[in-house]
């Protein structure tokens, strides 16, 4: 008897090819908000989609409704209004790192944007997406915390301004409601001298989820620190602002501070975990040393 040919294997993978029901690409914020209000958590809000497409890999067909923000040109601007910088939610990492306004006033944010992913990711990914994904490792989040940023959330009911440190509530969780959209990021400007440092620790030089990030922003009157913003990513369930340490630094001269002691304070204020990117012990030890490095860097910048 002839050998039987092996049976053809049935594929058990669900077939995509099922189309979404609706794809909206509104041209006004008002229209976008109405759609958002109507569909609530049924609709996926798409900005650059760099997080969205990864999160829905092989199950894109399960998404029924899309709200694509790409045509909202109002959200792609960076402007100064009343001594505040307003960054539209659809501003990309590439825009941030290229913008003279950002480089001059928010150098730490520009540096962080430059460290995101790769050129492709930076030209698609947006600041709004980075914030709304609310990953503890989101690279823009520590800088936004250290600059004292606030987020404007809009719905058909109105708008509210939420401070960055109140926005993030857990890993990939935040206080945005299902009828809201993030439209703007607002950061106060200052006439004082502002210097900062950005440190991203990752296991390779590109396309890497941060093992730890540190953003330090200091404002000076003369030699005195009048305002300090210190924040870290990937060391706790949310990006964290280290207010206790900020308080210690305010009203001091930078060079009078004990950098190593501050580093140890940083270590004591964070709560990292072991994961594939690094151990808890690693993150704590590195936190001490990068804090010292950041302060030395600022000292160099201030004195030059």
């Amino acid at each position, binding site marked *: 008897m002839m050998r039987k040919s092996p049976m053809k294997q049935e594929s058990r993978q669900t077939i995509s090819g099922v189309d979404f029901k609706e794809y909206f690409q509104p041209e006004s914020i008002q229209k976008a908000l109405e759609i958002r209000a109507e569909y609530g958590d049924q609709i996926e809000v798409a900005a650059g989609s760099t997080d969205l497409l990864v999160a829905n890999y092989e199950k894109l067909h399960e998404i029924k409704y899309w709200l694509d923000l790409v045509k909202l040109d109002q959200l792609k601007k960076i402007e100064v209004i009343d001594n505040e910088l307003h960054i539209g939610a659809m501003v990309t990492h590439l825009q941030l790192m290229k913008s003279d306004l950002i480089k001059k006033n928010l150098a730490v944010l520009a540096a962080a944007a430059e460290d995101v992913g*790769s050129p492709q990711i930076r030209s698609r990914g947006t600041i709004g997406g980075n914030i709304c994904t609310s990953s503890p490792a989101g690279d823009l989040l520590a800088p936004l915390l250290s600059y004292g940023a606030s987020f404007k959330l809009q719905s058909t009911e109105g708008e509210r301004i939420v401070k960055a440190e109140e926005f993030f509530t857990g890993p990939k969780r935040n206080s945005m409601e299902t009828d809201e959209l993030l439209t703007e990021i607002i950061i106060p400007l200052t006439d004082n001298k502002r210097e900062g440092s950005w440190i991203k*620790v990752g*296991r*390779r*030089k*590109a*396309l*890497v*989820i941060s*093992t730890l990030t540190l953003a330090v922003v200091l404002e000076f009157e003369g030699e005195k620190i009048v305002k300090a913003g210190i924040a870290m990513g990937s060391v706790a369930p949310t990006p964290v602002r280290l207010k206790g340490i900020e308080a210690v630094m305010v009203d001091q001269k930078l060079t009078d501070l004990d950098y190593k002691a501050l580093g140890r304070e940083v270590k004591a204020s964070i709560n990292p975990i072991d994961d*594939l*990117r*690094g*151990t808890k*012990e*690693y993150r704590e*030890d*590195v936190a001490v*040393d*990068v804090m*010292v*490095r950041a302060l030395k860097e600022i000292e160099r910048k201030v004195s030059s």
Partner: protein
Amino acid sequence: MKKFGRGMATIMFGFGYGEGFPDHSIASIEIKEDERIVIRTAAADVGQGVITTVIQIAAEILRINPNYFEVVQGDTHKTKNSGSTSATRQTYFTGNAVKKAAEDMLANLYHYGSLEFRSNHPEIAIEDGKIYMYDDPDDYITYWEMAERVKERGEKLEAEGSFFPVTYSPDENGQADKVYVAYTFLSQVIDIEIDTDTGIIDLLDVYSAIDLGKAINPKNVEGQIEGGTVQGLGMGMMEDQVIRNGKTLNAGMTDYLVPTSVDVPKFKHYLVEEEDSEGPFGAKGVGEPTLIAAAPALANAVYDAIGVRFFDLPISPSKIKKALKEKEENS
């Protein structure tokens, strides 16, 4: 603080399946009337460039521009066994099979040439796709015309070659006359910098000296060295499969890291062309040998930089930072 370190490693690598395995490759060559020379081989070009290599080899033997060649590759209906693209064996095995097929073809060109010109082969010249008598170069016949003539005779201008070297299985003491067909040698020096704040290794320069017999295509050889070394360095400092309770925790490339183009160090290559007696034009294999020295050289460079020996890979920032801390505490 940044600490500089330099490390070196030397390896040897016996290639081919070896150990008495019936390892071989079969290739054929056909000259067509329409100005094409077709090589048939099952050797899979997975990016390493074996297709380029066999064309170069055949073109050299057949004394004609490589542009005329076409390769039918890896088709079980049209090609005979060439063995796998593995064990660093294709240049050596399929290179030799193609070389033999080309030599057979060349001999046939002489044969049909002597019939055409009614003369003996020492009087006949073969060059640039033309066959003629030395004393009358203007009266030539091209390979393509010759293919036509041969076809008229009801034959094909076709040749086949195979390479089937003998190796021996080692005895109970691990000894044999010839376990592998040949060995490739590589020495590598790697310069690095370690950031003591973060435990991160920065790859600076890699110097490689490889005894490869003969570089049939030096650019492809450089590609192999750079690709292999980067893979080895990935193994040395990044690639880390973490298994807990039988489950792989890093199930995707997001947390199973390999170096990106911006992590790659600068390279300098030294090709040592000590021709092998059996390889095609003296060539030996240059695939896997390029990967092996990288991790040990890296480990030596790390030792040079911070005085700590690591015995398991990858040498991750977490391990380096911990070692630096322990070293400080113990001093």
